[in-house]
């Protein structure tokens, strides 16, 4: 599928609300986390173009701790070409941006939607969108997911802009270079960037997938450098 759009975000950020309003769907929503526990796709027509929108369960990161988070991670990894709308809760901007950063670091190129514009307005909170765009290198929208117009305009933007961004942070390159210089005996495996970073984080899924047998040795090398790495992650 060429035009596949995935909705990603922290739990209770408004992904399903966006989904319902953008696709005229009637998914169950609630004001607590963990309502959506499986991915749901819906085909819609926008200006004569057939597109599929996928509503994914909320996740705090791409290293899953629960079934729903694993669904989100697996979906993103198995649909490499999908476009990503990252919906974040404007009231918890800082915490939600952690997932955004992770998406950018891992090369997913999301479009950012700061949701709950109405509440932000009510609380007299202003977000410096221009600055955020500059810092992250991605397109940022301020929306109210309950508003159908907002949802449509985001979808329109995503469909008509193919290379939304190819931003990446310098420190990601540093980490990747550092990984290559470690001499872990993995160079012939041709790991992707995602796998390299997750490997350093000792993500069980990536370690399992590669059936790394001499992991003990590698762990020792990593351990000595771990403290440095943790600082970088922060």
């Amino acid at each position, binding site marked *: 599928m060429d035009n596949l759009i995935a909705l990603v975000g922290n739990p209770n950020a408004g992904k399903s609300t966006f989904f319902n309003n953008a696709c005229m769907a009637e998914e169950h929503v609630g004001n607590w986390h963990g309502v959506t526990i499986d991915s749901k796709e819906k085909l819609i027509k926008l200006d004569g173009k057939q597109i599929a929108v996928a509503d994914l369960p909320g996740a*705090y*990161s791409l*290293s899953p*701790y629960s079934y729903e988070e694993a669904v989100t991670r697996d979906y993103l990894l198995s649909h490499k070409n999908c476009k990503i709308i990252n919906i974040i809760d404007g*009231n*918890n901007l*800082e*915490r939600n941006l*952690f*997932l955004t950063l992770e998406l950018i670091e891992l090369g997913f190129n999301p479009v950012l939607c700061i949701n709950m514009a109405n509440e932000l307005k009510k609380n007299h909170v202003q977000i410096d969108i221009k600055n955020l765009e500059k810092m992250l290198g991605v397109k940022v929208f301020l929306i109210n997911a309950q508003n159908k117009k907002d949802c449509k305009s985001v979808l329109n933007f995503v469909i008509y802009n193919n290379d939304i961004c190819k931003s990446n942070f310098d420190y990601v390159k540093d980490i990747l270079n550092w990984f290559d210089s470690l001499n872990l005996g993995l160079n012939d495996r041709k790991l992707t960037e995602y796998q390299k970073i997750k490997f350093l*984080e*000792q993500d069980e899924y990536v370690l399992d997938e590669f059936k790394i047998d001499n992991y003990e040795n590698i762990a020792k090398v990593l351990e000595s450098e*771990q403290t440095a790495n*943790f600082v970088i*992650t*922060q």
Partner: protein
Amino acid sequence: MSQKLSNLKINQQGKIIFINGDIHLKRRLLELGFVLGENVKILSISPLKNSYLIAIKSYTLALRKDILENVFVEI
């Protein structure tokens, strides 16, 4: 003076200076906003004293005591 976050009393505030534990725990706490230098405050403690309600950044979190024992704060 540094001490475990779980040793703080209600309404006491502290600044995170160190997080103990393996990389998975550190990562998870990081995702939830436990960045070094961040201020945290205990809002309430459950009757059995095994879970804590804490305020961090602009939100509140409820966490088990054994997790908070890995977080060291400066008062």
